[in-house]
């Protein structure tokens, strides 16, 4: 989809994210929430956590995807209006981390989502968990790269 420059600029300044906590350990989720709080305050960059995927521009995934969640995560991805981007926070979301050998996980988020949307674009912020500084840096880099 061709984006007009005005819209792209606005999108860069106002990425709203929907947080999809998956089968991870919760730690990345907490560091994400930490980014909203006074010390890091990502609202400076216009980032806002929203409660419905319909409002979101980016999907924040924070863990490996279990078999039980796989279909749901795929549906939520489709629930987001285009243009959309996936942000994989933490080693587990990127590569499954320590859960690589576990029997109950279906794969890292990018693989799962690409099954239904091959054109999906992702941003990876590895770390276990990434420090809030890292996440903020990651977000800023995403915005620059868009």
């Amino acid at each position, binding site marked *: *989809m061709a984006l*007009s420059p005005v*819209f792209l600029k606005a999108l860069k300044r106002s990425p709203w994210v929907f947080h999809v906590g998956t089968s991870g350990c919760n730690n990345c989720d907490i560091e994400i929430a930490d980014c909203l709080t006074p010390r890091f305050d990502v609202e400076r960059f216009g980032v806002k956590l929203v409660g*419905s*995927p*319909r409002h979101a521009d980016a999907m924040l995934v924070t863990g490996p995807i279990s078999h039980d969640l796989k279909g*749901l995560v795929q*549906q*939520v991805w*489709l*629930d987001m*209006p*285009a243009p959309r981007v996936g942000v994989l926070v933490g080693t587990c979301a990127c590569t499954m981390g320590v859960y690589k050998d576990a029997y109950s996980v279906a794969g890292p988020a990018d693989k799962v989502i690409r099954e239904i949307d091959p054109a999906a674009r992702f941003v990876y912020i590895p770390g276990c968990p990434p420090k809030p500084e890292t996440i903020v840096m990651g977000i800023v880099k995403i915005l620059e790269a868009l």
Partner: protein
Amino acid sequence: MNAELVLLPILIPGVLGLVALFLPGRLRAVLGFLGSLATLAAGLALVSTRESFHHAWLVLGPLNLDFSFRVDGFTGWLSALVGLCAFFTALYAADFFRGRGGAPGRLYAWLLIAAAGAEGVVLAGNLLLLVLCWEIVTLMLFVLVITGSPEGAPAAAKAFTILGFGDVALILGTVLLGSRGFDHPMDFATLAANPLATGDLFGVLTFLLLFAGAAAKAGAVPLHTWIPTMAGPASPPVMAFLPASLDKVLGIYLLARVSVSWVTLTPGLQFAVMAVGAITILAGVLMAMVQHDVKRLLSFHAVSQVGYMVLGIGTGTLVGVLGGVFHMVNNAIYKACLFFGAGAVEREAGTRDLGKLGGLHRAMPVTFLCMFVAALSISGVPPLNGFVSKWLVYQACVVARQPLFLVAALFGSVLTLASFVKVLHSMFWGARPPALDGVNEAGIGMRLPMVGLAILCVLLGVFGGAPLDQAIGPVKDVPAASVALAGGLDAAGTFRPGVVTILLVIGVLAGILAAHLGGARARRVRSVFIGGEPLDRAQNRFPGTEFYRTVHEMPLLGRTLDAGEKGVFDVYAIFGKLGGGVIRGLRSLHTGVITDYLFWCLLGLGAVLAVFFWC
């Protein structure tokens, strides 16, 4: 133009109705349809005429029972409205009863006779004649309710009792009003020329009797209870035709005539009438909010809306009277539409329990849109017709300096809106329960009246000034009505719904244009998001019946409403209980012992003698 033309709207349905009584079913339906159409045509023909028909018929001493009918701009329009209601009802009924062995009993015949009676009330130029036609309508209501539904008998009896009480009051009032000794004591012109002062007991009593008659017919609190009771058994066409629209028209028409031209109200009486209006608004709408049966819910709104008319007329100001009368016309339109829609849904979905309905907007789009418009209209959302008339009533409250009643009226509108949000949501929005998967749109005969009425809602709203200038002014019985009207209205101000509408449309279009300039035209359909898991249509529902539980759980309010639902405030039930008590007491006196009876006889004789000698 021939003066006899005035009789046409009465004679056509009257004669055809009597003929139809003796015809077989199918012919009766045809006759009903044609007869009501002809009535409508006759009514429309009258709208621009000002004629009166007079025939001295019977002179009993001072009492001239003249056979006099008249039409002015206003009553002409009303006559057309009655015809329209009859026509739409006949049309609707034809489709409604299709596939069920046709209309039950002699429905069309009674319908026509009722229409004739209503036309008679509207066109009468003589109070006695009006009362006569009035009784015909009451009788027809009784007959229509029990036609085809034997379980309707208790409801019909209740209605007949309350209306009978009202009619007795009306007759007494009529007699008192005419007993002041004029040449033509029952003639409208005479009455208007000699308005009754209400400074003394006689005046107050007369007015109250007349008011009771009008209020019972229109269904103002506390004489309203027959309407919700009959909402269950009466079929939707009957509900839409009489209790919801025509009875209101007749009751308020009479009230307007009485309190505007025949009686001069003292401020105290005005206040009382306004209070009745305000209480009716709030009581009706609050009761409506907790109903789960759509017809019963609508019938409480039918009560509530009367409050606006009574309130408007009670202010005694020109704006108020115009607002009340205009609201009466508007009410007939949107309320008939709502009852038609509810009936259509009941017929197609097989239930009128709001908790079991849902998601029908796709299955019944026309019914839905018509009910949507009518619901917004009854809630007084601009720029629909309900807003125009309610706005006049609000203005009247300001002119009459009655802030409390103004707040009640405005708050009543909010509650009405809330109630209809519940209705619309329960019937048409939300997920469709799996049980309703096979539901289809109502037939064309049912859709047409709804569409027609919904269009009228919009037209009378957007061009709300026109009927005020053209038709409703003359009720005040002033010559050159529109001139006086313009002057009178300017004092309080006019509202130009047309301008607002045009601006609103421009604004909405500008918004859509801006959205398109944003570049986003892409649209995609997805199932709803309820947290990720798929929607279970049978379970994941939030039906409208659940909307106002919180309100119901408010202290005091909930308990009062429950009491209202149980009939604690129902005059009929109260008097029924009282009457039952008296009868039980009397029955206990019948011991069967002859000496006891002798004792009572002696006691009675003693009492009579005592009174006799005392005085």
